[in-house]
């Protein structure tokens, strides 16, 4: 096996976290190599599909409509995770997030005010101009200008770790394996959501019917290597963030445009043409993450959102047109459902709808009575042709299992001791902060904050570097 020159910092993964680590380490004077498994076009993993980051700020800015204090951020985090977080790391992330807004802009990333459709996040979240790929382009340009080495289609296939100390990784590029020694290692290469064999360990065979919303490269191989090397993990190994997305989406990388948020406007039936859950339970975004799991529990892991003509233009258009038919029975035929059953499901639903005033922005008083399950809000009769349907499947966004880290983004070993020279950032350690649930933009905040910390700390292990110190310290 050939051998690469020595680098101070080796980074696995070229997404937001990896690039922030690379830029931060390089700015501290370290030599940095980034190994990105994807091609140049697909570089950056799930960052490509993101759009904003959630950072605390004390005042409104050009691109943020009002203040979002650290306390409010913390409250939101506690609410979405139901307390399933490491308080110390959560508070660190939130307090660092303030500075990240300026720091990331200094690295060339541009923000824009939130516009139509995203106004609800306009105060809390900073939107990247052009979205996540625009953000990546800016970070890559900055990293290249600083002299960071970047290799594409270069996958880490092995790591050499002894007693929690990293010495080298094996990089596979064009079928050639190369040893890449480095003084420190930053793992920033995502979770394992695109590894179906691993998903099946938690979900069983039904995982075959899941769609992956982002990159096909998040196979969790480095996470697995680290686990084998005695790294402590955190987060439920069986859990993932799943939303209901258009069933016609491609297996990977369908991204944002396959999402559907029209559950409230109609009913959702399974392959048996029967309803299975209260479509009016909660407002977005809370219901968003619930439905992926619900559909996963249905036969064939598929469901159909059924609505009628007046609702067609009430929600964000999606990539695929809805399937339409002049009658409910014909719609059932199009969907290959039992027409008698679907017709009965819709009729029973319509008969149970109570009078009320429809308002999709609040928990309104439109509900059913006498159904099982009831639809507790936004219940309106489905009676005006044409009738529409969207088929949906679970779309997996990310997994929760990850490496345990400390305040320096340093990986913690099974015995509780921090690794001498291994760090983790991004989805690789997001579960430390986000043990459950999700709130928009938080993944990117974790990536940038801990990426920057990891890069800075990793660079300090370089001899002769300002602030360098021994690993024993």
């Amino acid at each position: 096996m050939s051998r690469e020159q020595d680098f101070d910092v080796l980074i696995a993964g070229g997404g937001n976290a990896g690039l922030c680590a690379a830029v931060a380490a390089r700015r501290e004077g370290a030599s940095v190599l980034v190994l990105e498994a994807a091609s140049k076009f697909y570089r950056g993993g799930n960052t490509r599909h993101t759009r904003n980051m959630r950072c605390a700020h004390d005042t409104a800015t050009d691109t943020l409509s009002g203040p979002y204090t650290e306390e409010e951020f913390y409250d939101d985090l506690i609410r979405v995770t139901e307390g399933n977080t490491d308080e110390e790391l959560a508070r660190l992330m939130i307090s660092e997030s303030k500075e990240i807004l300026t720091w990331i802009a200094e690295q060339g990333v541009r923000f824009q005010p939130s516009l139509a459709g995203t106004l609800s996040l306009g105060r809390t979240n900073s939107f990247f101009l052009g979205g996540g790929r625009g953000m990546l382009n800016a970070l890559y340009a900055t990293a290249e200008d600083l002299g960071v080495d970047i290799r594409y289609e270069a996958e880490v296939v092995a790591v050499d770790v002894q007693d929690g100390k990293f010495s080298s990784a094996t990089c596979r590029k064009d079928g050639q394996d190369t040893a890449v020694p480095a003084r420190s290692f930053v793992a920033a290469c995502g979770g394992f959501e695109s590894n179906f064999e691993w998903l099946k360990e938690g979900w069983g065979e039904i995982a075959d019917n899941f769609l992956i919303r982002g990159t096909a490269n998040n196979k969790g191989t480095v996470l697995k290597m680290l686990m084998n090397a005695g790294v402590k993990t955190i987060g439920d190994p069986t859990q993932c963030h799943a939303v209901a997305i258009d069933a016609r989406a491609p297996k990977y990388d369908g991204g944002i445009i396959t999402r559907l948020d029209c559950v409230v406007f109609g009913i959702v039936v399974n392959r048996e043409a029967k309803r299975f859950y209260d479509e009016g339970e909660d407002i977005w975004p809370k219901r968003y993450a619930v439905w992926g799991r619900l559909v996963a529990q249905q036969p064939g892991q598929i469901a159909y959102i059924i609505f009628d003509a007046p609702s067609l233009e009430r929600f964000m258009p999606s990539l695929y047109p809805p399937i339409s038919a002049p009658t409910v029975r014909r719609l059932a035929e199009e969907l290959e459902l039992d027409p008698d059953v679907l017709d009965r499901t819709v009729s029973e639903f319509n008969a149970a709808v109570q009078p009320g005033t429809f308002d999709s922005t609040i928990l309104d008083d439109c509900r059913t009575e006498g159904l099982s399950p009831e639809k507790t809000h936004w219940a309106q009769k489905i009676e005006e042709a044409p009738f529409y349907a969207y088929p949906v499947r679970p779309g997996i966004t990310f997994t929760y299992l990850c490496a345990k880290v400390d305040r320096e983004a340093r990986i913690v070993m099974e015995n509780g001791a921090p690794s001498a020279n291994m760090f983790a950032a991004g989805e690789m350690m997001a579960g430390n902060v986000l043990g459950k649930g999700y709130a928009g933009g938080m993944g990117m905040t974790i990536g940038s904050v801990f990426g920057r910390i990891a890069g800075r700390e990793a660079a300090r292990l370089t001899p002769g570097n300002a602030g360098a110190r021994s690993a024993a310290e």
Partner: protein
Amino acid sequence: MNVVTPNPGSPVLTDPLDEAERLMTVCNSCRYCEGLCAVFPAMELRRDFPKGDLNYLANLCHACGGCYVDCQFSPPHEFEVNVPKVMATVRADSYATYAWPSALAPLFKRNGLMVSLIAAISVTIFILGFVGWHDPGVLWAVHTGPGAFYKLMPHNTMALIFGIVFLYAILAAVLSLRNFWQDIGNPIGSFAEPISWWQAVKDAGSLRYLDGGGVGCYGEDERPTDKRRLYHHFTFYGFLLCFAATSVATLYHYLLGLEAPYPWYDLPVVLGTLGGIGLIIGPIGLLAEKSKRDPAMTDQQKLGMDVAFLVMLLLTSVSGLLLLMLRETPAMGILLALHLGVVFALFFTMPYGKFMHGLYRFMALVRYAKEMPRD
């Protein structure tokens, strides 16, 4: 269930308008690019995209390339979202669609060749005209002092010929724009709305939407620069200065009775010289940027039209400046024929070439200002 992937996720459609409709459907379900330019906010006001609206959006697109470079679904992604390229095709096709008279719309096909031919014929006719009018010796003689040009061609003849072709160009352009304005969903009565016009003047004059949302536009890679905007400013304002030079000279002639050529420090010459310099730097810069641009986001088949227009502008400025420098030598006659021939061809081909992009884009910006909330 039928889980066959329907239209929007399928590969590129052959008809450019169909493909543009597919892309707008895809983009409308994403909207990440809404901060980049005017196209996406305008798209968000719509759910369906009839042909007129697509032509409007295509002319609103300044081809900065920002959305291509920032798009997670651009090729090689299977959704093949390439907005700049498809908009370039639709835009160029729209010039032919709305051209007046429609009988001359075929001039947009192989436009580069057509413009070259018309320019060559025009220059030839001017040379032959100079020779035929007088004896061949006049062409190579040295003429100086006021009225020197008019020894080759009487001023009234010159004014008449250029007046006619200029008025024709205006008429054809206005009637073409009228077709466009109606097709993009504007009743003729809604034409006059000063505030929208003023907004469009500001947006067009600053090339507000050729900056990828503030970072610049994209040429060879994913690093933005502001060069195209700079060179376009040289070209556009150079053109305006040249136009002003001609207008001032016409006023000098008819109102003040002052005959060209004018001394170098006189207003028409100063304006013309500055404009001419702009029209040399600008087109050369734009041609250079064009040659470096990633071909993936341009319509290579429409390159001829773009290049022909830039070369015509360059020939106008070069021949004009040469005429200024050599007007007291025997080369003056042939240079005057060249300059007038090129300018005549430029005017004549204006309604049937790349020149129209500015007018359609301006009208699209008026439309945009009308339908969007004010800044």
